[in-house]
């Protein structure tokens, strides 16, 4: 209760702050925070202010169950802990849990919590906080984005529907241990996209204990989450300006060295100007062209990090049932040249969506090297009707696609396939491709395929067709379904690697989607910022406590 009142006051304070500075340009008092200042001696060690750029168009709500943008993901990663997190090399590493164990049948996940984690207000982080967070997220009124993952917990559906007061698969073993039991084996349960992950950001029960799940978005805590357990604590958010954080000297993985972090909210052009003028230390998602231009700037490091997404074209398999036609489209396009033009070579060609991690990469797939002659042969074998016009759609404003589409169109025309370009406004695209499928070819990018080969299952299982699931191509292959299920059933890496080899070969041969490449995420990093090791999917904070600023 104390916390809630305090937060309420702060929000009034912030509003007044903006109003005053705006209306009269008055100097106002520096921004303070209400958290108890502790360990003053250690606090002194942390110094400097890190400025990082982020897209301004993010949803200014910090409810971890409704995180919808990369910016929100990063904010939550900074202020909240999870059981485990992902490092640069896509390994799961300890966070709030210091150890975890997966049962041999891949149904039980047991986490041992560390005993020294505390909330920003000094309360200990307990196993009850973990149980509280997952229970809250499983309620229908919370409408948690993680539901797809959480519904796999044994008894979660009954709990969600109100048939049971407890989810049997969520178990408090003892004061330091929590166990999740799944209804069906799935070793990949721990991997997901940033936005639908089974590793939830853990929330403080002592503050949110009696919050109404249906109105979480409006809860004062979700607008100013001042009590987390992460490396930094939330201080302030000023709309379209910045989000401010302060080092948490009691962070369980070590006190951060940098005193404050500001996420400066701005569109990419503005971020670029800020980076070049020295107002920013860190800019995510730089375009390959800007990366190349700034390559030799001594004040900056340009670091491309391998991505985990795949740039690809979904083919409506119901309209193109003959795989020879889909293969012909692969051969018809000079993907290597296209990668050079569109991404300036910043990425790698892929020949299936099974692209990682390291143990799940295979080099014996057909590489579909540019071969228009082969494409014509395949089309002739498939008796392709040359008078047919097919349409290619995408969500307007996707720059890489807009560069690539005319080339694709021209190269397909050369082998006898007439393509009509039909970009759609994003809502209309969503409708045409996902909610009421009616398309021939749909170009898209992103995803987190490289995190774990099982990620592909969501897109190709015959049980996950749109609109209910994510299989936009309506591709169905029983043998592949079985492989995916088998791949989930064992924690043994070698066994899994063999299974996903077959998955990759199948996708490579069937080309339910046309595979292009996985592009790099390019980071612009100030030369005086040390310790940053960009990871996949913008998980950049994973080692933030080790970062340091060296400003002379």
């Amino acid at each position: 209760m104390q916390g809630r009142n305090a937060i309420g006051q702060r929000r009034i304070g912030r509003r007044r702050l903006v109003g005053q500075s705006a209306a009269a340009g008055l100097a106002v008092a520096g921004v303070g925070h209400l958290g108890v200042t502790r360990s003053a001696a250690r606090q002194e060690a942390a110094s400097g202010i890190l400025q990082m750029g982020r897209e301004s168009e993010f949803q200014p709500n910090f409810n971890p169950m409704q995180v919808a943008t990369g910016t929100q993901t990063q904010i939550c990663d900074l202020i909240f802990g999870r059981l485990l997190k992902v490092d640069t090399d896509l390994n799961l590493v300890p966070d709030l849990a210091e150890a975890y164990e997966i049962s041999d049948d891949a149904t039980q996940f047991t986490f041992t919590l560390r005993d020294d984690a505390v909330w920003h207000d000094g309360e200990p982080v307990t196993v009850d906080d973990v149980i509280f967070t997952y229970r809250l997220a499983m309620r229908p009124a919370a409408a948690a984005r993680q539901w797809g993952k959480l519904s796999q917990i044994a008894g979660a559906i009954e709990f969600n529907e109100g048939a049971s007061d407890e989810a049997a698969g969520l178990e408090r073993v003892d004061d330091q241990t929590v166990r999740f039991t799944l209804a069906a084996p799935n070793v990949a349960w721990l991997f997901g996209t940033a936005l639908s992950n089974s590793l939830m950001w853990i929330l403080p029960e002592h503050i949110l204990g009696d919050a109404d799940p249906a109105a979480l978005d409006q809860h004062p805590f979700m607008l100013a989450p001042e009590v987390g357990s992460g490396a930094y604590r939330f201080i302030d958010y000023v709309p379209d300006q910045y989000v401010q954080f302060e080092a948490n000297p009691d962070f369980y993985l070590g006190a951060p060295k940098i005193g404050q972090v500001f996420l400066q909210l701005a569109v990419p052009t503005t971020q670029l100007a800020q980076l070049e003028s020295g107002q920013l230390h860190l800019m995510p998602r730089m375009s390959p062209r800007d990366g190349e231009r700034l390559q030799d700037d001594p004040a900056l490091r340009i670091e491309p990090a391998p991505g985990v997404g795949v740039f690809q074209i979904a083919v409506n398999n119901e309209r193109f049932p003959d795989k020879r036609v889909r293969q012909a489209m692969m051969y018809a396009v000079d993907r290597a040249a296209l990668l050079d033009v569109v991404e300036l070579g910043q990425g790698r060609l892929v020949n299936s969506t099974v692209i990682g991690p390291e143990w799940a990469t295979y080099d014996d797939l057909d590489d579909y090297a540019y071969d228009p002659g082969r494409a014509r042969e395949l089309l002739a074998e498939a008796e392709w009707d040359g008078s047919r016009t097919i349409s290619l759609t995408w969500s307007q404003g996707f720059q890489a696609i807009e560069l690539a589409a005319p080339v694709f169109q021209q190269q397909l025309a050369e082998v006898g396939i007439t393509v009509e370009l039909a970009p759609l406004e994003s809502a209309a695209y969503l409708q045409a491709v996902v909610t009421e499928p009616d398309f021939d070819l749909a170009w898209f990018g992103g995803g987190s395929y490289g995190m774990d080969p099982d990620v592909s299952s969501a897109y190709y299982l015959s049980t996950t067709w749109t609109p209910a699931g994510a299989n936009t191509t309506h591709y169905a292959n029983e043998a592949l379904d079985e492989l995916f299920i088998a791949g989930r059933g064992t924690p043994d890496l070698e066994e899994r690697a063999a299974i996903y080899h077959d998955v990759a070969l199948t996708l490579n041969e069937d080309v339910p989607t046309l595979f292009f490449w996985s592009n790099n995420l390019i980071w612009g990093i100030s030369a005086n910022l040390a310790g940053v090791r960009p990871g996949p999917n913008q998980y950049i904070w994973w080692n933030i406590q080790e970062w340091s600023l060296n400003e002379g």
Partner: protein
Amino acid sequence: MSQFVLRRVLIAVPVLIGVTLLAYLLVNLAPGDPVTAMIDPATRAELGQEWVEQRREQLGLNDPPLVRYLLWLQQVAQGNLGYSLVGGQPVAEQIGARIGPTALLMGTALLLGGVIGIPLGILSAIRQHSILDYLTTVAGFLTVSTPSFFLGLSLVYLFAIRWRAFPSSGMRTLGEPETATDLAHHMILPVTVLALAHTPLLMRYARSTMLEVLRQDYVTTARAKGLRERIVMIGHAFRNALIPLITVVGLSLPELLSGAVITETIFQWPGMGMLAVRAVNARDYPLILGTILVTATLVLLSNLAADLLYGVADPRIRVSARRR
């Protein structure tokens, strides 16, 4: 007079209801909804239909549009603009946080535009065909036909990146105490862009209305009476040229609080323009309605203010209004 004002205020109520209802129906007709607007289609597919249903239920989007509009109207009648669907904050608080920065930025720009533009326009009318006239005309056309995004980015490139004279964006230097000087420093570039857009407009209006007035018989009469040129210009000509100018200034008043989207975006100025665009992109119905309500109210108020000012500038209008 007070009856006139009262009548105008009462008419405003149905106008506002009409405007918001129309806007509401239009945004509901557009494809997309707040649940799926802000996520990319791949993510939407991953999240699945079940989540979409739960979220729609949570946000109360399953009622028919008209019912939702009436619920909104009922809230507004009680002085509550509701909550943002994507952000969760009260709409009134969000708008309140933006009005200050917008008023500061646009107010300064409009004021500068008026202070520079109107005297320049009058001068170039008085000295028609002089070098000053030609210069201001050419400069005016140049600035008015330069798109603000181009001008804005050019200024950023030159003054923020090349010469590092001004910050490229924002309202304050982060990590340093807020001061008026710092704020002013941050305002210079965006205000320049906006003022350059307004100055030529006011200048050209001032020039043409002044030219028209100068050809009127009463100016000739005043001169014939032997009045000094300065008195003729200020007392007779300028006063009459004011009326069309009031209209132009009145029409640009709503801008004062509705903001300038492009300039705000380039300079990352947290104003109403950005908020409105954000609301539309996110299909955040309560926020869209809130911004429209505020903007529409301003349009009505500034029209009323302009009408009242006509009376101050020209007694003839006051008299005829009373007769009616």
